[in-house]
């Protein structure tokens, strides 16, 4: 999983992809996860942080992270590998 490092994430959740010209908005959990991903954290690190901070069981977290990552991929913000 590789994040496109040139994307800009503002602290209020606006994302601009300078390669495609697309812009996006994130919700609060989305900001937190994408920011961690950009700072080089692994998926396991992210899971740990989220599980620590939120009331969520592993299966549910796994399910929605997977969903979120597939959305990121769909929008060319991350690539497989």
């Amino acid at each position: 999983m590789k994040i496109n490092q040139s994307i800009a994430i503002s602290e209020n959740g606006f994302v601009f992809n300078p390669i495609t010209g697309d812009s996006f908005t994130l919700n609060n959990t989305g900001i937190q996860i994408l920011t961690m991903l950009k700072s080089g954290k692994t998926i396991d690190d992210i899971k740990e942080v989220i599980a620590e901070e939120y009331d969520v069981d592993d299966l549910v977290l796994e399910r929605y992270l997977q969903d979120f990552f597939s959305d990121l991929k769909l929008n060319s913000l991350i690539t497989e590998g």
Partner: protein
Amino acid sequence: MERKKITVAITGLNNIDSPGPGMPVARGIKESSYFDTRVVGLAYDHLEPGIYMKEWVDKTYMIPYPSKGKEALFERIKEIQAKENLDFIIPNFDAELFSFIKLENQINQLGIKTFLPTLEQFEERHKSNLPEYGKKYGVNVPKSEEAFSMNDLANILRSYTYPVMVKGKYYDAYKAYSLEQAQAYFSKLSAKWGYPVIVQEYIDGTEVNVIALGDGKGNVISAVAMRKQYITDKGKAWGGVTIADDSMLELTHKIISQTKWRGGMELELIRTTDSKLYILEINPRIPAWVYLAVGAGQNLPEALVKLALGMEVRPFTSYDIGKMFIRYSWDMIVDIDMFSKLVTSGEL
């Protein structure tokens, strides 16, 4: 002279290829010699150009689409009022007027003035009510009927000759030369603006328009006649010239004095070859070409503000004939940070 400081909110900052009237209204007010105005824009879409035109619009807030209901709109206006202390709101879209008229009392109670037609005035001039309007006020209107289904459309069209005009409930109009074309436009218009879709007799002639302002007591405060010189594929005037046509102004006086119209309006007229005037549409708000009136000597937006604030307003009695407007487009350069701020905070 010291200019009076006021804050006025306007909608319709979409001065795109089918422009809303917000920017020319802002321009008229900004150029007023009576008022020193802070213009607050109210926008539906992040890309309405006026949001970024800081010379005319000091601050913009996003507001909910009319289809979201008037309560959502009122909540947002309350939030904005807490920060801006607005003196006056000018809604500039047909589709939002219904909500604003219904909210008029509530908005006034927040200390914000409005100057809108009554619900009855607004309803009776609807495209679908035009035939009755014509009868009631003794003016020429094209034959028209409402269609609620494809079946209806086909039935109605049996008594019309092509071409016919097919029109949306709020906006958009197409000329159809066959049943098939009419049906295609019917689908398009009903999907966008709901039912009914209006079928109107096509009347051949020259398109002429009047912009007017009524004081709600039957007096015409401002009225300027214009002939469209260049019409875009969307049916919008891209150039026009003021004309001295007394019959058009007489018609305007006749309508405003009978209906006691309150606020801005536009009459879309056709002058036929035998010199009869037909009313095609009565728009219940200021049209996008309002700045031509300002340029010809009638600052209609300024007069509207005065009326709303309860000031004495003397009717304009003349305007310059042969003034033209020529619209042009202009590419602004905007940093994406502005866009980002607007998207995430809802204001700019």
